[in-house]
């Protein structure tokens, strides 16, 4: 699973200006349908060392807050033997052949994969460059390279103390043959990896200079805002532009078949213009759809068997013969991402070329989208990436790029298309609605002897990454479910693919694991209750073969005060997570039901084992972040449909956690040398079940539907 073991090819090119350009590529990953025919030896990332000593990493991964620009730089700097502040970053241009993420098979930042995918390759790239620079220095001095050492961008000949800087060596190093093998540092010699190095992007993010896609400014640029059909599949029938055109600053109305944009001198005029438009829509086939229709479709689909993603033992017989059988259905709603930076994309379509400025988790897809709309070849489309004002999976989609290019094709100037918050929430690519049926059989002692879990929802992978959709199994839909660590002699995990084309659906932070962990870990508490056992003790007994899981569970229980008495009205809940990310995470959440009925989260304690840690402070920050995102989603997150339209529109009716509602979040790291695991998403995924179990502990109410606050109000004891 780790990228480190994949075949790597390294090439050296002489850079313009005499510097050393070092690149590498890794073999085909999950998304490469035919790795054998994957492009040849083109490198996938570059180190550039200029004659003036400047060291540039061309960064294939998008920075959306998760700290990847820091951790990627640390991997490189560690082996290259340069200080972190000597590394300059450039956003990579779109190019799958150069910058593919080995786990995902294309240039993509998602699935908590950056460190997992680049831990080996970036270190190797750094080590190779260092070896060549040392070789160049040794050749200059006519000495044995083994008698030289590199540190902080300088090669020293140890016996004589002579020194040469990397910049002075770059041109010569570029003429040397590529070493066949380079030795990576022993982790015990790391000076950077494993340290809480400061993020280099912080200063620009506290003084307003950090550039997000929405901050792009170009000479002659116009600003547009847009209204797409409020119902998916709807079309524009007619537009009365009279009043909009009268708004001072409005330049042009652009009509597409499914959207209308107002192009203006500034956003205010564009917004005023949009409000003044009178658009007649034909709503299409989804005109009358409501959330209840979606749930009905899913519930019906749940009655039929799906594709089996994991099976062992004989679950049917085991269930039939169980002393006690527990069954439940769980539901998780559509969710919007609500990144702080609303969707936006700036485009300049010129004769025979197109230029795009945006923030994207998938830059090569953004370019392909622009090429498709304009009909231009890929090489005539230039795409610039920026900091992302939040990704969370939303910017894995390129719908907003496609739309902006369609608008820009009709505008004779560069145009920045900015969605209002309302447009952003009502035209998201939502986390799907999931419907799960789950059952367990217990023997006379309360030990689980059978576990069946049927997941009903769409196959996002089939749309998004078709090569990874094999044998009808959506590895995302069942992620976190098929890796169930509990020792149970008979297990069946099924996925019933059921598409509800009333909203576009895609990845939301924590992907399939977020919904599966909520179901699995809530249900574990249900069967612990049925077995009359403590939730932590019940889990512990089933984890004898999973020492890493046991360790985080014990640590979270200890630090979370598990078992200690709580005041009335408070409760503690636990949840454990393991999935494709390779990270073990246990959370203990403590909640209170206020007299108003509101759930207040008082404290969250997490214990995490993500293997080799690159930057412990960023790991902690990601868990803190994930937990907050998870609390918002679990307590309140819900997108509902009425007459085919999304009912939520802004932060007043799509509630998210605020500072005064945020509990202290403690993160305890288990440090070891295991392969790195993903860290951007687990904190989100583990939180819903921990909260729900805490609510049960406080109230005796078992909630099987998200969001929890609404479910709590609706559930009679």
């Amino acid at each position: 699973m780790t990228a480190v073991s994949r075949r790597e090819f390294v090439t050296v090119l002489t850079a313009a200006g005499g510097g050393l350009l070092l690149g590498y590529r890794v073999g085909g990953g999950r998304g490469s349908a035919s790795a054998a025919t994957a492009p040849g030896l083109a490198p996938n990332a570059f180190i550039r060392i200029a004659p003036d000593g400047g060291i540039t990493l061309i960064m294939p991964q998008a920075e959306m807050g998760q700290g990847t620009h820091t951790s990627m730089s640390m991997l490189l700097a560690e082996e290259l033997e340069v200080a972190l502040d000597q590394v300059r970053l450039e956003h990579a241009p779109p190019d799958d052949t150069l910058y593919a993420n080995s786990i995902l098979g294309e240039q993509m930042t998602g699935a908590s994969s950056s460190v997992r995918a680049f831990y080996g390759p970036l270190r190797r790239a750094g080590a190779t460059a260092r070896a060549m620079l040392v070789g160049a220095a040794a050749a200059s001095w006519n000495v044995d390279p083994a008698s030289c050492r590199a540190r902080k961008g300088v090669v020293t000949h140890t016996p004589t103390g002579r020194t040469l800087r990397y910049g002075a060596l770059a041109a010569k190093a570029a003429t040397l043959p590529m070493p066949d093998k380079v030795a990576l540092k022993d982790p015990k010699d790391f000076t950077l990896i494993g340290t809480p190095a400061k993020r280099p992007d912080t200063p620009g993010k506290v003084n307003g200079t950090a550039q997000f896609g929405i901050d792009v400014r170009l000479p002659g640029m116009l600003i547009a805002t847009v209204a797409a059909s409020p119902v998916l599949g709807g079309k524009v029938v007619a537009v009365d532009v009279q009043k909009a055109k009268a708004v001072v600053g409005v330049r042009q109305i652009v009509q597409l078949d499914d959207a209308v944009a107002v192009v203006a001198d500034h956003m205010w005029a564009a917004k005023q213009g949009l409000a003044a438009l009178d658009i007649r829509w034909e709503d299409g086939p989804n005109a009358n759809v409501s959330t209840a229709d979606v749930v009905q479709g899913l519930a019906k689909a749940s009655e039929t068997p799906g594709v089996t993603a994991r099976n062992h033992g004989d679950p049917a017989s085991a269930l039939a013969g169980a002393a006690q059988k527990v069954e439940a259905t769980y539901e998780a709603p559509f969710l919007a991402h609500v990144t702080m930076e609303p969707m936006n994309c700036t485009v300049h379509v010129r004769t025979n070329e197109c230029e795009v400025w945006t923030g994207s988790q998938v830059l090569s897809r953004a370019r392909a989208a622009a090429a498709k709309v304009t009909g231009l070849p890929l090489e005539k489309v230039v795409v610039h990436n920026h900091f992302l004002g939040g990704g969370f999976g939303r910017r894995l989609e390129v719908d907003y790029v496609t739309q902006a290019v369609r608008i820009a094709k009709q505008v004779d100037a560069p145009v920045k298309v900015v969605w209002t918050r309302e447009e952003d929430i009502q035209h998201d690519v939502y986390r799907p609605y999931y419907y799960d049926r789950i059952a367990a059989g217990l023997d006379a002692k309360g030990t689980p002897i059978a576990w069946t879990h049927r997941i009903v929802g769409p196959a996002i992978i089939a749309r998004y990454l078709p090569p990874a959709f094999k044998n009808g199994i959506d590895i995302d839909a069942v992620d976190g479910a098929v890796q169930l660590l509990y020792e149970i002699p008979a297990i069946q995990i099924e996925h019933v693919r059921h598409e509800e084309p009333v909203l576009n659906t895609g990845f939301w932070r924590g992907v399939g694991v977020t919904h599966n962990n909520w179901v699995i870990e809530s249900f574990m508490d249900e069967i612990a209750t049925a077995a009359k056992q403590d939730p932590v003790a019940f889990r512990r007994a089933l984890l004898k073969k999973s020492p890493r899981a046991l360790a985080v569970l014990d640590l979270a229980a200890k630090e979370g005060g598990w078992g200690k008495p709580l005041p009335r009205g408070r409760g503690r809940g636990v949840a454990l997570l393991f999935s494709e990310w390779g990270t073990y995470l246990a959370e203990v959440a403590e909640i209170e039901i206020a007299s108003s009925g509101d759930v207040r989260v008082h404290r969250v304690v997490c214990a995490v084992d993500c293997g080799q840690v690159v930057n412990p402070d960023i790991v902690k920050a990601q868990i803190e972040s994930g937990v907050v995102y998870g609390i918002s989603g679990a307590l309140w997150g819900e997108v509902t449909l009425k007459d085919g339209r999304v009912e939520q529109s802004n932060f007043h009716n799509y509630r998210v956690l605020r500072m005064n509602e945020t509990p202290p979040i403690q993160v305890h790291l288990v440090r070891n040398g295991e392969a790195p695991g993903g860290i951007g998403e687990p904190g989100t995924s583990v939180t819903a079940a921990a909260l729900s179990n805490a609510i049960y502990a406080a109230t005796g109410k078992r909630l099987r539907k998200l969001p929890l606050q609404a479910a709590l109000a609706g559930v009679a004891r």
Partner: protein
Amino acid sequence: MVTLRINGKAHQVDVPSDMPMLWVLRDVLGMTGTKFGCGMALCGACTVQLDGQAIRSCVTPVSAAASKTITTIEAIGNTPAGKRVQEAWIAHDVPQCGYCQSGQIMSASALLARKPHPTDADIDAAMAGNICRCGTYQRIRAAIKQAAQGAGR
């Protein structure tokens, strides 16, 4: 034409009087450090200071700002509280995506200028209007407390 005094400099702008300050700053004057988040004063991303008070520029018309001293993220580091806040933000590596942080810093520095040693309740009251989807709240609280320590007694 209206004259705006922003970060100690006078700017003449020819815009409708009901145009929110946010768009004047971003789209007319090119000061993009102030961010658009909701357009309804619900998220705080657009926070700037008018005569030292934190306000939501997305709903503040230019007419209401014309006679005031306007301070934005680009110059908040020139104020004692703003400087301490920025330093504390860096010390705690508060920002993640960073998009909301201009607004967070403008709210926090207005709080500290007014109340150099805020309680947790003061921090909650001053900061509850600033949403951060990356969930940096815990670090924001710690950074405000650190910045307050530098304020002297």
